């Protein structure tokens, strides 16, 4: 019992639960008592080992929290018991959804670019000022290594309206020549219309890693939709994470993303059962 109390005192010191007076007394004793020093050191090592276990446990838990996100949209165990009954129904519903998705795609294709812009362009509250004067629209780079300003690269900066105008003219080539995330975004939309989904995904990816927060969000939604059209969504962890992020985030697309997420429930369940 005496030994137990002795060790408990060391543990309380290391856990920081001793009183102020208790702590001062312990530290004074520590200075003159080699046995206490040694035992305290040993407890510290034991604490490190326990912390390691706590970290491991937390990591496992985070893994399960992440899985919960996906599991919440996949069938619960009872689904398996009745899968034989509902398999034909599940197939029918999946087919229906696939057809709907296809129809939706063709309907989307029928849209003029003008309509796509008006239907999809969000109210960008934080769009940076891109309405600079013509004189200002030459970007110069400083060559610091030579200690002089040098116009080594000249790149026209396009306003958002100008980029949209080019987009409406279906000029993919011109959009691709502009180094701007907004141009990448609209190039991605044109590539979808051409069914060049993999290239469209690359364009949206470029927007996502850019520094334009408004278009990043929009590009994430388009990325998910394109991954669905490209049939790569199932294996695309990034697309899944983006959809969940959009759904749970406070943004203009959380409602749209939640609806898309909800619609994906049935195909995902089908995949899981299969």
């Amino acid at each position, binding site marked *: 019992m005496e030994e*137990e109390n002795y060790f408990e005192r060391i543990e309380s010191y290391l856990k920081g639960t001793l009183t102020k007076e208790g702590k001062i007394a312990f530290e004074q004793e520590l200075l003159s008592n080699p046995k206490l020093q040694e035992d305290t050191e040993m407890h510290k*090592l034991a604490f490190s080992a326990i912390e390691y276990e*706590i970290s491991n446990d937390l990591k496992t838990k985070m893994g399960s*929290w992440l899985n919960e996100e996906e599991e919440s949209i996949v069938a619960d165990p009872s689904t398996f018991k009745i899968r034989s009954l509902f398999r034909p129904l599940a197939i029918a519903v999946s087919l229906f959804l696939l057809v709907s998705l296809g129809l939706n795609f063709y309907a989307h294709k029928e849209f003029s670019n003008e309509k796509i812009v008006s239907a999809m362009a969000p109210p960008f509250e934080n769009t940076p000022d891109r309405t600079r004067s013509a004189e200002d629209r030459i970007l110069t780079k400083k060559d610091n290594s030579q200690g002089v300003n040098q116009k080594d690269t000249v790149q026209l900066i396009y306003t958002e309206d100008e980029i949209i105008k080019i987009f409406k003219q279906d000029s993919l080539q011109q959009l691709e020549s502009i180094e701007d995330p907004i141009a990448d975004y609209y190039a991605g939309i044109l590539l979808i219309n051409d069914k060049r989904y993999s290239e469209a995904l690359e364009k949206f990816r470029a927007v996502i890693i850019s520094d334009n927060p408004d278009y990043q969000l929009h590009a994430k939604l388009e990325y998910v939709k394109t991954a669905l059209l490209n049939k790569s969504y199932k294996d695309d962890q*990034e697309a899944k*994470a983006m959809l969940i*992020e959009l759904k749970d*985030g406070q943004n203009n697309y959380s409602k749209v993303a939640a609806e898309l997420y909800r619609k994906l429930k049935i195909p995902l369940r089908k995949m899981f059962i299969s």
Partner: protein
Amino acid sequence: MKLDFKDDKALIHAIKSGNQMRERALKEIYTSGKFKSKVKQIILSNSGNLQDAEDMIQEGIIVLDKNIRNDKFKGESSLEIYLTSICKFLWMNQIRKNSKVNLSDDFNSFDLVAMDHPGTVLLNNEKSQILEQLLDALGKKCKRVLSLWKLSYSMPEIAEIVGLSSEGMARKTKYNCMKKLKEAVVANPHISTLLKN
């Protein structure tokens, strides 16, 4: 997502309290888009992918949890900024180790002093393996009891969670497990050296 904690103060308090409240608070941090989005943006902008971002968030939360519980986080910044700083720090280490890419300007100017000592929990493989062996030798029950005790669970709570008959039994089990752990550390000087480092 429904938030259980109204602000950083409530989250920190819950983490410090250990017990089940800690787990709820950490889950909220981990699953909240608010905490994740900035980290993702940073990792994606510095040659990482979403899986890298996910890994860094997990490692970052482990450091955050440990630093809050051990009073190393002084509350001089918001939890969001703190977690982002930790993840930045961890990712910087990772990419430097792999010499994968040039860091962005934002990364190169990253100031460690601005952080409340994030510390590193990334253990080398050797240390991890030895700790795994040490803890495995203790047995599942001992690992659980010691972890719960370190996380400030009360003895009656530990007894209930682990399935021990009484508070007294929980106390006795914890004492014996701690003794066993210390003996294992003493018996293996290599472990002591690794843990000291």
